[in-house]
């Protein structure tokens, strides 16, 4: 296949830029901020080139770039994208400049370090989504933990140390098991393939032939690591702490992209590598997903802290994604992929919006606010649209994902019971409850707190520039999702084909 280095350029742009930033003087935060922003914009533009060069009518990984890296282990630097990974890369490169722009005022100390970390993180995230070598994937997966750890630990809230350590240990624990599984698989592959390999495309061929019992272990070793990241109930308790303590930019990236790495991992590895186990355990995992949907929504409902509320809502939303993946019908998996993007946009925007008023008042307590509709009408209108997107109102993005997931799970032969959908659909009601209740308490009523009159000012031009692009996509996906669904169709079908034969045997 013809070599194309575009993905490598994309991968290198943020990391090279971040190194460049290290040479700047800390005394000039303005220059640092602008440079960081421009670098992330450059990465976004490169990702657009990838998008326009991408052929949605081919199911293969495109823009493949491969260089032998560690000869003795047969490990390569091997990258490439299909529709799903490209979409997630676009989400990453889209959100990163926005978060940098949103931190213009919020991050005052150690601007240089912060910008460096954010760009470093971007490379890590892009790398995860484009790696086609398990070893390379693992490196990016772990590398990404480092900047996130620092972003929470340095620029976070009062309990940032507890939160960042909890985040680190939780995820580290999961990924170690994955490492063991990767090594085992690579060793196993040397049987049928003749040599030790971590090449994903080769491993796809041998994964299904792993004996059933061992395959279950492998499956769960991978799944655990991803499940913590998603997070799937009951592995979610790191998330509210990390979100609440992280600075706005950290929360946006955490919710917007990092959580998707878990669901992406399930889709990219767990399903095609271990299809028998995936099919076999699908009902069990879907059950956990549904518990997450309802549990997350109910706990979100009673949170006094806005950020924590949004954090728990993520547990519920990601539950939908997991359900969609394990329903293993085309509708559901397509819905799950688009729902990953939706959650990135809607929840990202919600965190940004909480950040906007937090910057002014330094409070995230719902009870502190009330009646702000009069004071900052533009903000409230934007918050309304974003909440509605998260609630899943038809015409906005959230509905497309939820509808496809529920529809697909309803007719799923893997799950083979309506009850999954019935319970999951009740989450649709609860989402309206917790978000509208929060909205009502924060926005409506009379201004209870006289302080607010002085402290609150409506959104600035910069803040609008951050949020409006997200709103555009919220409407775009809601009205014309084909732009995105068409991109992922063949990639989804390919994954489903790899598990398809095992689903059929189940039906029989």
């Amino acid at each position, binding site marked *: 296949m013809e070599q194309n280095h575009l993905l490598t350029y994309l991968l290198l742009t943020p990391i090279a830029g971040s190194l460049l930033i290290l040479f700047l003087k800390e005394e000039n935060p303005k220059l640092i901020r602008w440079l960081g922003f421009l670098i992330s914009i450059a990465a976004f533009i490169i990702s657009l080139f990838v998008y326009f060069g991408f052929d949605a009518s081919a199911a293969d990984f495109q823009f493949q770039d491969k260089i032998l890296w560690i000869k003795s282990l047969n490990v390569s630097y091997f990258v490439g994208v299909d529709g799903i990974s490209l979409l997630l890369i676009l989400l990453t490169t889209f959100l990163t400049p926005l978060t940098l722009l949103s931190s213009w005022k919020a991050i005052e100390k150690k601007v240089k370090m912060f910008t460096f970390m954010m760009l470093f993180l971007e490379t890590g995230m892009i790398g995860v989504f484009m790696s086609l070598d398990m070893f390379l994937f693992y490196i990016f997966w772990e590398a990404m933990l480092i900047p996130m750890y620092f972003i929470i630990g340095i620029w976070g809230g009062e309990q940032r140390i507890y939160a960042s350590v909890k985040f680190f*240990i*939780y995820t580290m624990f999961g990924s170690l098991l994955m490492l063991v599984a990767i090594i085992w698989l690579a060793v196993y592959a040397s049987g049928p393939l003749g040599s030790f390999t971590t090449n994903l495309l080769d491993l796809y061929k041998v994964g299904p032939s792993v004996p059933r019992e061992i395959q279950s272990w492998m499956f769960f070793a991978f799944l655990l690591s991803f499940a913590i990241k998603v997070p799937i109930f009951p592995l979610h308790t790191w998330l509210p702490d990390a979100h609440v303590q992280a600075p706005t930019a950290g929360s946006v990236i955490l919710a917007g992209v990092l959580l998707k790495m878990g669901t992406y991992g399930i889709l990219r590895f767990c399903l095609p590598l271990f299809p028998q186990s995936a099919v076999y355990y699908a009902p069990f995992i879907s059950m956990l997903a549904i518990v997450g949907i309802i549990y997350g929504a*109910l706990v979100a*409902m009673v949170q006094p802290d806005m950020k924590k509320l949004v954090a728990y809502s993520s547990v519920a939303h990601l539950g939908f994604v997991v359900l969609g993946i394990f329903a293993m019908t085309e509708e559901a998996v397509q819905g799950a992929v688009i729902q990953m993007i939706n959650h990135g946009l809607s929840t990202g925007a919600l965190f940004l919006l909480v950040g906007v008023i937090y910057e002014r008042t330094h409070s995230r307590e719902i009870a502190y606010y009330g009646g702000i509709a009069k004071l900052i009408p533009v903000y409230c209108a934007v918050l309304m649209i974003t909440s509605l997107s998260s609630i899943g109102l038809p*015409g906005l993005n959230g509905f497309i994902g939820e509808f496809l997931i529920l529809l697909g799970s309803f007719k799923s032969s893997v799950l083979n019971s309506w009850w999954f959908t019935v319970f999951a659909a009740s989450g649709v*009601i609860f989402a309206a409850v917790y978000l509208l209740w929060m909205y*009502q308490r924060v926005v409506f*009523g009379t201004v209870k707190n006289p302080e607010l009159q002085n402290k609150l000012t409506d959104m600035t031009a910069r803040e609008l520039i951050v949020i409006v692009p997200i709103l555009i996509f919220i409407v775009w996906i809601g*009205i014309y999702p084909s732009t995105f669904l068409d991109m992922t169709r063949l990639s989804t079908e390919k994954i489903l084909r790899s598990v398809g034969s095992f689903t059929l045997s189940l039906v029989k």
Partner: protein
Amino acid sequence: MINFIYLTILLPLIGFLINGLFGSKIKNEKVIGIIGSAAVGLAFLVSLGAFFQTLGLPVEQRSNTVELFTWLNVAGLNIKFGYLVDQLSLVMSLIVTGVGFLIHVYSIGYMHGDKGYWRFFSYLNLFIFTMMNLVLGDNFLVLFLGWEGVGLCSYLLIGFWYDKRFEKGTVAQAAKKAFIVNRIGDFGFLLGMFLIYSTFDSLNFSEVFSKVQHFPVSETTFSLIAIFLFIGATGKSAQIPLYVWLPDAMAGPTPVSALIHAATMVTAGVYMVSRASIIFASAPAVMTIVAIIGLLTALFAATMGLVQNDIKKVLAYSTISQLGYMFLAAGVGAFSASIFHVMTHAFFKALLFLGAGSVIHAMHEQQDIQNYGGLKKYMPVTYLTFLTAALAISGFPGFSGFFSKDEILWYAFSNGNFIFWFIGVFTALLTAFYMFRLVSLTFYGEERFKHTQQHASEGRGEFENVPHPHESPKVMTVPLIILGILSVIGGFIGIPALFSGEGGNNFESWLEPIFKPAEEKLAYTGMYTHAQEILLMTISVAVALAGIYAAYYIYTKKPDIAGTMAKKFKGIYTLLFNKYYVDEFYEAAVVQPIQKGAEKILWKFTDTFIIDGIVNGAAKLIDKISGTIRKMQTGVAQFYAVIMMVGIAAVLLWLILGI
């Protein structure tokens, strides 16, 4: 015009965008009001054009589809933004844009001086936009888009005066309640759609409905689909058990109550059931459930309407009750009677609400009818039009409500049974009674507001609050007059075959192609004579007149009777006045347990205590163990040497004994 039907959707959207984005800059109320009204007025003209064009077509070509672009295309699911122009959707879109236009014009006067003027008109236009999607969509998903969209607009408009209080809570709470209760219904609707899709592989009306007639599908499946869809309808159309949001929805401005919570949105459930008539007809058991729920709701709401003192509350319960009639009709297979009542109800109930708005306006936002009285001479136009509407809803012969309600009662008897008919007639008696209680207390008798004003002025010296009742401006009264005329003559297009002879019922024959498959499936073969029809009609007329006279007598002639009766039947009165304590029951049985459970059991116990306890406990345990192990690292070389020796000895021992 059929090909331009999308304009009826596009124009209100444009109106919404103009007023929504630039309204705060326009400032001029006239400009804002005219933009908002014109958008809907033009949409009405387009609908009218499409109607006449359709009328000119031969019957078999009267169903046309206009497709815009693909919305969702995944696997077997292919949903387009497609709009269906047929007999049913045309009736609905004429009602929505026509009555909608009049209410927009009325609002120009009613909302005068409100600081959210532009916001109000942009929301109203957004409502028309979503409602048109609902009635015109050619598949379940576009219908659902509109369905949820009107729910949103309802939420925004109920909460329009978001900083005000409403009864025991706030306006914002009422708005939230409406949205959430509706969502519970939508949950059913969604499941219905999933089941339709997994059974018929499509969500497109024409495809699904033709497959319904030919696919070998079990009655259980049909029953489930129908029951799920009906759950959706009970939410949107405020039927038992999900009706509780509608009385609270009265927290919104009165034109909103007229447009959304009386004439259009709340009839969406009736429309949906009628649209899916063939599915319901394939599930006879569910048909019976629909009829019974409708009947019970009609009766139950009417009893609550008897004792309410808030003018809008009376009308709200009346709306719930009338919607019950529509479901009764649908449940006995009389779909076109159901839609006929949707139409006449839109005329007279919109008129009642707008009239109430005119009164409220004149009385300085006073809504308690106990403080009205004798307003007849101050506001003659409002009075006459309100009276017309009251006569229409009570089923006074010749008025629109008479024809539509009587048709429903007739089918309740001929397709249903005597009990259906009897409860229906009894509810009609209650309807006539509570309506004329309202008319009497508002327009006749003593001018009670003078007492209250004197008390008020003596007590607090607030002279500026003294109401000087006056007629409303032309921009408000002209819509009243037009609706008044429609409330009278609107019934003539549906005169029963009994009177009109050969041609039969025009309205029914217009809709016939839509409901034919369902009617054939149901195949009601009751043989009844004209004599029976005349007899039943006579009874219902007598009942209506009795109700009207009784209310007039009690509340105008002998006002003390009402008080004595309330005292005598104190138990029943309190029960009715407190609306059977249903709200309190829901709060205690559903809302509180969920909220408390979520906080105490899920969050504080499961999340924080158990899961985090395990995580943090594990961390502590490792810390402890490593702390203990660390102590062994004493740094004393002799200690290490001893350990080493012990180790070697142990290994040697094991080797020797092992061999």
